C-alpha cells in the first residue's frame, strides 16, 4: 500500500508522477536533508532517528564509510578520514597550502588545479568526498519519500565564488543528482522564516556553527534577495566556546596543558556538555577525572561562563558591525535578525546579538535545521508542486563580472547585485591593423584595473579576418545561469568564428577576501580613477602612434620632404616617451602636439586620397 501525502487543493499528482524534491544543507561539520511533505517542511532522520549527518567520509581499501561511522574513526584513522571537505571544495592547490596547515591529510602533487588527497582507496578530490555525503542524503530522502528525486536544492555560503559553486554542482552530478539550483545559505534561512513573502526590507542572518561564523546582510527587493555584504570568521565557532570552558576547567582542576590527547578530548566533551547544560540551567556541577588519579569537583555558574565566552561573542559582534558598514546600512534599518547554527542556542549569544541589533532575534526554528528547511521549500517550488502564484526566489551576482580591455582596464558587463540568470552582450573591436586574434580575459571585482580584480578565465578568439584597426566587430556575451555559473562567449560577427569558456574550479576566494575586494573598491576609488585616466590616455596615445606609423610606412616617403619628416618623427618620439611616463596629462599634451604637427600631413593624405579616388572619373559622376 502506498503512503500518500496531503496535496494542496487541485495539486494532487497523478500516481507515479509525484515530483519529489529535497533541500540539502551541505555543511562543513554536519549536513542535513529536508523535504516538504503534506505542506510542511521537515528535516529527514535516518533509521536511528538522527537528523544530522556528520560531513565525514572515510576511505578504506574496499569500501567507503560516511557520516557517524566515519567520524567515529576520525582519530584512529585520520589520513583516510576526510572531514571539512567544504573548506577545500573549488579551491586550488595553492590556496590549500595556506589554509590547509591544520589539516592532517596528505595532498598529492598533481598538474591539475584541483587538489587531491591520498587515501587507502586511491586519491580523492574534495568534489568526490562531497559527492559521497550527497549520495547518502539523497538515498535517505528517496527512502523516506518513497521514490526517485526529481531534483534537489543545495545550499552554499553566500561568499562562495563561481569555482566553489561549480565544484559543488559537480559533486551533485557525481552523486547522480539533478540540481534545481544552488541557494545561498542565508537566503535559505530567510526563506524558512517566510521573510521572502514579507515586506521589502533589510535582514541580518547570524550564522554561528560548530567551526565557522558568517554574518550576511540581505535586502529583499520585490521578491529578490540581494546579498549586501557578508563577513565573519572561518575559524570561529562552538568548538572555540568549548575550548574556553575546557581551559577554565584545566586551570581550576590543575590539569597541565601538555596532558595526553585522550584527556584533552574528554575535557572538550565535558566542556561541551557543561556549555549545553548552561543553555537552560543557571549553573552546572562538574566531576572531572584528573590524569594520574583523583577527581576534581566544581561548579560552573552562568556568570563565570559568560565571562569566559564574552570575548568570543565580541568578535562576532565586531564582524556584524563591519558587515553593516560594508552594506552601508544602519542598525535601525535591520528588520529581522535570523539565528542559524547550533551555537546560537546559547542564551548569551542571543542576548548580545539582540543588544547589538536592538531587537530580539528570530529563534523559533531549530537553528541547526533552518537552512535545510529553506532549501526544501525552494526545492518544492522548483519541482512544480506549488501553485503558480508562488514567487520564485532569485539571487544576485555578488561581484561585478567583466573583461580586460586595452591598457589593463576593466569593462564591466554585469554589475554586482544583478539578478540572475542574466545575459549581457557588448561589441568590442580590434586595436591593430590586421589583428587576427584577441585575448578575452574574464575578471571579477569592483576595481578599475584588471590586475586588481580576480582573474576568472582567459581564452583566445582566433580567426578574425584581417581588417584595419577598429573595423572588426566582436560580440562578447556574458551569461550567468541560475546557479551563479558564468559562461563567456566571443564571436566575430562577419565570419561567425566563436570561442567560449565556462568558469571551472581554479581559485578560491574567502569571505574576508570578498568583503575585502568590495571595501578596496571604495578605498581606492580615487587612485583607481587616476589609473583609469592614465590607462585611457596611454591607449589613446598608442592608437595615435600606431596610426601614424602605419601612415608613414605607406606614403611618408612620397608626401613629406626630409625636414617635414623629421618634425613629425620628433613629435612622434616625444609621444612614445610620454607614454612611458605615469602622467595622463603629459601623454594627452604630447598626443595633441603630434596631431597638431601632423595636421598638414593628414590634409595632404586626404587630398591624395581624393585625387586617387577621382582619377579616371568625370567630375559629374560625383554630383
Amino acid at each position: 500500500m502506498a503512503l500518500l501525502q496531503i496535496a494542496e487543493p487541485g495539486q494532487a499528482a497523478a500516481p507515479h508522477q509525484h515530483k519529489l524534491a529535497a533541500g540539502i544543507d551541505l555543511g562543513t561539520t554536519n549536513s542535513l536533508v529536508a523535504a516538504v511533505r503534506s505542506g510542511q517542511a521537515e528535516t529527514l532522520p535516518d533509521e536511528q532517528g538522527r537528523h544530522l549527518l556528520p560531513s565525514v567520509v572515510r576511505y578504506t581499501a574496499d569500501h567507503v564509510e560516511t557520516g557517524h561511522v566515519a567520524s567515529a574513526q576520525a582519530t584512529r584513522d585520520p589520513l583516510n578520514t576526510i572531514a571539512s571537505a567544504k573548506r577545500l571544495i573549488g579551491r586550488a592547490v595553492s590556496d590549500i597550502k595556506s589554509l590547509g596547515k591544520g589539516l592532517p591529510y596528505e595532498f598529492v602533487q598533481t598538474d591539475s588545479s584541483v587538489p587531491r588527497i591520498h587515501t587507502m582507496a586511491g586519491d580523492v578530490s574534495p568534489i568526490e568526498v562531497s559527492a559521497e555525503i550527497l549520495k547518502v542524503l539523497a538515498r535517505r530522502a528517496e527512502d523516506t519519500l518513497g521514490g526517485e528525486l526529481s531534483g534537489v536544492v543545495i545550499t552554499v555560503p553566500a561568499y562562495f565564488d563561481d569555482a566553489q559553486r561549480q565544484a559543488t554542482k559537480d559533486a551533485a552530478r557525481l552523486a547522480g543528482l539533478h540540481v534545481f539550483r544552488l541557494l545561498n545559505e542565508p537566503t535559505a534561512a530567510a526563506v524558512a522564516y517566510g521573510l521572502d513573502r514579507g515586506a521589502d526590507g533589510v535582514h541580518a542572518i547570524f550564522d554561528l556553527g560548530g567551526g565557522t561564523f558568517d554574518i550576511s546582510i540581505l535586502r529583499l527587493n520585490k521578491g529578490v534577495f540581494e546579498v549586501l555584504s557578508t563577513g565573519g570568521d572561518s575559524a570561529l565557532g562552538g568548538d572555540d566556546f568549548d575550548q574556553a570552558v575546557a581551559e577554565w576547567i584545566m586551570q581550576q582542576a590543575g590539569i597541565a596543558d601538555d596532558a595526553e590527547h585522550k584527556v584533552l578530548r574528554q575535557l572538550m566533551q565535558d566542556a561541551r556538555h557543561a556549555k549545553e547544560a548552561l543553555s537552560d540551567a543557571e549553573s552546572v556541577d562538574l566531576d572531572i577525572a584528573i590524569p594520574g588519579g583523583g577527581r576534581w569537583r566544581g561548579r560552573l555558574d552562568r556568570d563565570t561562563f559568560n565571562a569566559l565566552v564574552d570575548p568570543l561573542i565580541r568578535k562576532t559582534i565586531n564582524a556584524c558591525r563591519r558587515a553593516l558598514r560594508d552594506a552601508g546600512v544602519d542598525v535601525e534599518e535591520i528588520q529581522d535578525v535570523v539565528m542559524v547554527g547550533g551555537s546560537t542556542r546559547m542564551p548569551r549569544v542571543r542576548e548580545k546579538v539582540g543588544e547589538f541589533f536592538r531587537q530580539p532575534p528570530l529563534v523559533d526554528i531549530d537553528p541547526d535545521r533552518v537552512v535545510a528547511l529553506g532549501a526544501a521549500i525552494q526545492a518544492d517550488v522548483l519541482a512544480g508542486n506549488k501553485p503558480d502564484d508562488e514567487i520564485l526566489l532569485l539571487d544576485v551576482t555578488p561581484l561585478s563580472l567583466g573583461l580586460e580591455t586595452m591598457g589593463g582596464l576593466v569593462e564591466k558587463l554585469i554589475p554586482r547585485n544583478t539578478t540572475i540568470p542574466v545575459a549581457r552582450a557588448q561589441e568590442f573591436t580590434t586595436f591593430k591593423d590586421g589583428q587576427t586574434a584577441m585575448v578575452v580575459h574574464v575578471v571579477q571585482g569592483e576595481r578599475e584595473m584588471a590586475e586588481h580584480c580576480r582573474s576568472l578565465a582567459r581564452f583566445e578568439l582566433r580567426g578574425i579576418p584581417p581588417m584595419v584597426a577598429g573595423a572588426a566587430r566582436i560580440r562578447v556575451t556574458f551569461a550567468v545561469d541560475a546557479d551563479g555559473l558564468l559562461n563567456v562567449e566571443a564571436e566575430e560577427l562577419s565570419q561567425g568564428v566563436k570561442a567560449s569558456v565556462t568558469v571551472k574550479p581554479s581559485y578560491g576566494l574567502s569571505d574576508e577576501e570578498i568583503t575585502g575586494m568590495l571595501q578596496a573598491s571604495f578605498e581606492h576609488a580615487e587612485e583607481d580613477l587616476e589609473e583609469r585616466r592614465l590607462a585611457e590616455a596611454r591607449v589613446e596615445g598608442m592608437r595615435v602612434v600606431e596610426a601614424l606609423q602605419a601612415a608613414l610606412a605607406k606614403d611618408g616617403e612620397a608626401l613629406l620632404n626630409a625636414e617635414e619628416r623629421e618634425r613629425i618623427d620628433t613629435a612622434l618620439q616625444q609621444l612614445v616617451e610620454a607614454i612611458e611616463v605615469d602622467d595622463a596629462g603629459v601623454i594627452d599634451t604630447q598626443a595633441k602636439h603630434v596631431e597638431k604637427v601632423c595636421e598638414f600631413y593628414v590634409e595632404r593624405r586626404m587630398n591624395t586620397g581624393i585625387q586617387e579616388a577621382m582619377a579616371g572619373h568625370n567630375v559629374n559622376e560625383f554630383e
Partner: protein
Amino acid sequence: MGISLTETAAERVRSFLDNRGKGVGVRLAVKTSGCSGMAYVIEFVDELDEENDVVFEDHGVKLVVDKKSLLYLDGTEVDFGREGLNEGFKFNNPNAKASCGCGESFTV
C-alpha cells in the same frame, strides 16, 4: 457507512492543518488514472463545493468527499502509517478488489 479515519491519522491531519494556517479539512477523492484504473487523492480543502460535496467528521477532522468519489470510497478508513523511513496516509478501502503493486491505484 461513510468515511472514517484512525486516531493517528486524525492527529496528523490536525497538525498539518495547523501548520498550514488555513483550510477546513481534507478532501478524499478518486481519479481515473494510474496503472490499475483508479487512484486516490488526498488534498487540503479551502472551500467546499456545496452542491457536490459530502462532509464527514471523525476525531474532530472534516473529511470532504465528492458524491462521485463516495461511490468508490464508501466504508474507507484512512490510516497514517510508517514503512521504514517513509510515512504517509493509507486508504483501507473495502471496495477495492485489486490494486497495483504500489497501491497507488486500484480497481473496484
